[in-house]
């Protein structure tokens, strides 16, 4: 009977079934992105060198690189960068620590959930930078209000991603642990925490960019040093090469943080 499949009747020719499963699976090529970036920078540089663009509005990449080099040599880069990094570091750590604790409480306790979600829903939508003047009144004009603004911004996003992560831990794993009489604290440590970790790390990506946004905004409002203050100053003096140097440094910082979180994900979530 199988032979019939290859038989053709005299008046019918065979034709191939048309392939229609193509597309919708975009694969990113490894070098494509870099080549495109290099191409854009090359065109930008060529336009600058040929004086097609006014360097006051858009300095050429080479001018920006020179500005970064000079900033590094004069020591100004470290002064501004270290001021920003300190604010981000302390603010992010404080906000993350509080956010993780509150997020777990909301995820695990009925009381914390009913109280916590109400407060978070009410306070989360406030742009935290709007609180800076109030925080300056409360905490003075030093580092504290800037750090507090960052910590607040980071806190809410962290708390939300942590309790969503705790909610997403498969209930069957918790039931399994309960069926072996595993105590509450061990269930939290060995089941809930690792189960929530993917959401927690995804939250870190968001809070890192929130922290960067807030540090720059806060420094633009009131700071002598810091990348935000530096960018604003350069803008006021129409030093666009310096301004863009600051922007490039922010971009590199954002990329570096993304890489660190990516590395953490590979290390901690290898089981996925």
């Amino acid at each position: 009977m199988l032979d019939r499949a290859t038989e053709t009747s005299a008046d019918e020719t065979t034709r191939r079934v048309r392939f229609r499963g193509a597309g919708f699976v975009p694969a990113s090529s490894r070098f494509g992105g870099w080549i495109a970036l290099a191409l854009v920078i090359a065109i930008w540089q060529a336009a600058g060198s040929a004086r097609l663009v006014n360097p006051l509005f858009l300095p050429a990449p080479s001018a920006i690189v020179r500005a970064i080099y000079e900033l590094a040599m004069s020591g100004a880069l470290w002064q501004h960068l270290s001021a920003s990094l300190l604010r981000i570091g302390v603010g992010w750590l404080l906000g993350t620590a509080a956010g993780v604790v509150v997020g777990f409480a909301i995820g695990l306790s009925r009381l914390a959930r009913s109280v916590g979600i109400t407060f978070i829903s009410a306070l989360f939508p406030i742009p935290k930078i709007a609180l800076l003047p109030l925080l300056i009144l409360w905490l003075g004009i030093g580092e504290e209000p800037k750090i507090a603004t960052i910590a607040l911004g980071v806190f809410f996003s962290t708390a939300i991603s942590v309790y969503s992560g705790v909610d997403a831990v498969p209930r069957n794993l918790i039931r399994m642990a309960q069926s072996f009489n595993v105590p509450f604290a061990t269930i939290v440590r060995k089941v809930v925490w690792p189960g929530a970790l993917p959401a927690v790390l995804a939250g870190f990506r968001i809070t890192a960019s929130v922290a960067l946004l807030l540090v720059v905004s806060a420094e633009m409002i009131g700071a002598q040093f810091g990348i935000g203050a530096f960018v604003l100053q350069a803008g006021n003096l129409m030093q666009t090469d310096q301004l863009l140097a600051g922007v490039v440094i922010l971009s590199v910082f954002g990329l570096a943080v993304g890489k660190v979180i990516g590395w953490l994900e590979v290390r901690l979530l290898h089981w996925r």
Partner: protein
Amino acid sequence: MDLIANHISHHFGDLAVLDDVSFTVGAGEVVAIVGPSGCGKSTLLSILGGLLLPTSGSPELRGAPPADSLNPLTFVFQDFALLPWATVEENVEFPLLHTQLSATQRRALVEDALRRTGLTDFRKTYPKQLSGGMRQRVGISRALAVKPAILLMDEPLSALDSQTRELLMEDFVRLLADGGMGAVYVTHNLEEAARLADRIVVLSRRPGRIREVVAVPMTRTERGDIAAREQLLALQNQIWSLIRNEAIDAEREVQHA
């Protein structure tokens, strides 16, 4: 140690799921619970294992569990419930971590449980690397590690393909033969029930009531023989005739819901 279902009824809101279910699982006895889908089989098992509070009635234990039992009532779950971030041996060790056992004692128990389920060579692998059948073996291995008196098995084979199911069923026969371990085996598969159980509790459609308790008149070893096949098939048919009409009704109900 006996496990007793003492007049257990349960409601989910207005929905009555179980109605006055009573039976006893004697020491070392394997009792299967079968019934049309939605008859409350899994709910009953959760209640028996203390994971769900019944609306009325209670699950009870009579007599002392074996002295070395670390968790007399131990579940084997349909979806395996393995920690995906833990290796096979970490999963098996998980229920031992909070006990008073020393690391050496824990290792010995894990070792023995892995050996009995043929997982020794897979100790360092992660659940995602294993087939469904091997994952369930990890679930069984974890259950064996705590030396249960009664295994509470919630459709342990229903997520597996038929060949794997056949192989694991052979494992169950072997495990239940050598340990003096009892089991409550919830299944919708009558072949599994007839192959493994000493008695089969047949539940009616929702709300689940006991329709009949059928004794299987052979030892588990005898049931493996070709000669016994006909007798087992007759038994399956007998049970199927009890639940067939209700299974049809139950299916229609689900479709209308």
